[in-house]
């Protein structure tokens, strides 16, 4: 018997997967990133339709319930992704600054 949440997750995972594939086709993300997102969403699909599978994993990891394992793993993953974003934004900001500084110098030189 399919539960409502399973249908919602199924649709969302498919949607996310299709986005990842489309982005990869446009070369907006690398092959490695495509594999990462594909694995992630396929994993989500597997766990949605075979909830007992997460219990096996949880048991293996020494955590009581499969659902708990999922929450822990998600939080870790989110933190990691946020960290990557932070580093990336910081780098981009520094590059913008460099550019702005360069423009400032060039404009002064021109005026002389």
């Amino acid at each position, binding site marked *: 018997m399919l539960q409502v949440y399973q249908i919602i997750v199924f649709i969302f995972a498919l949607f996310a997967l299709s986005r990842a594939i489309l982005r990869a086709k446009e070369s907006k993300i690398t092959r490695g990133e495509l594999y990462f997102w594909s694995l992630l969403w396929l994993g989500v699909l597997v766990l949605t339709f075979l909830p007992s599978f997460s219990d096996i994993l949880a048991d293996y990891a020494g955590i009581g319930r499969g659902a708990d394992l999922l929450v822990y793993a998600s939080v870790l993953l989110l933190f990691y992704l946020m960290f990557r974003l*932070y580093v990336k934004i910081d780098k981009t900001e*520094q590059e*913008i600054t460099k550019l*702005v*500084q360069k*423009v400032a110098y060039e404009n002064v030189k021109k005026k002389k």
Partner: protein
Amino acid sequence: MTGKKVFIVIPAYNEAKAISKVLDDLKKNGYRNIIVVDDCSSDDTAIVARHHKAIVLKHIINRGQGAALKTGTDAGLNLGAEFIVHFDADGQMRVVDIKKLLTPLIAKKADVVLGSRFLGQKAKNMPFSKKISLQLGRIVVFALYGLWLSDSQSGFRVINRKAAQNIKITADRMEHAGEILGEIKKKKLRLVEVAVTILYTDYSIQKGQSWSRGPALGLKMLLRRLLK
């Protein structure tokens, strides 16, 4: 000023009202090399500064005080500066104090001289909340960089050429004050603090850093320290 090449670097963001008097004061005291970095002001800061014959560098996008200081400091180095003064555009620093900060540098007793608001004379009209946040700032700076200073968030500093070449400012926004201290420690530059008087006028209090941004600032400094 004793024939040495002293460059005054003033980051300015919407300071058209206040900067005129600051530039006049500087000129009256014999400082001729003035670099104003206009951090994408929406008012006439750049026009006023040019009118006062300052060298004006314009950021086409607002990048923050740290970035503006870097732009100005690098320009000073390019123009052959021996000493670079970081000065504020809002009129809360006194031009007469520059000489006091320069003295240890000219005597070759320091590479970096920081103006401290807590040595000697009391900061005039400093808001109470500011006092508290500055005390907390000292502790944060000590924990992160191992420097125990009387005033860790001072923006009034004079550095010699060697220090200017060595201090790398990568923090665009207000975290640069901490970053500069970290660089001083790392590059083993000789640091001296000198008492200065900061005039807290209504204008500068309104334009200045709000104490409520302190925690976010501390967090940013911590992140930078961890990621480097």
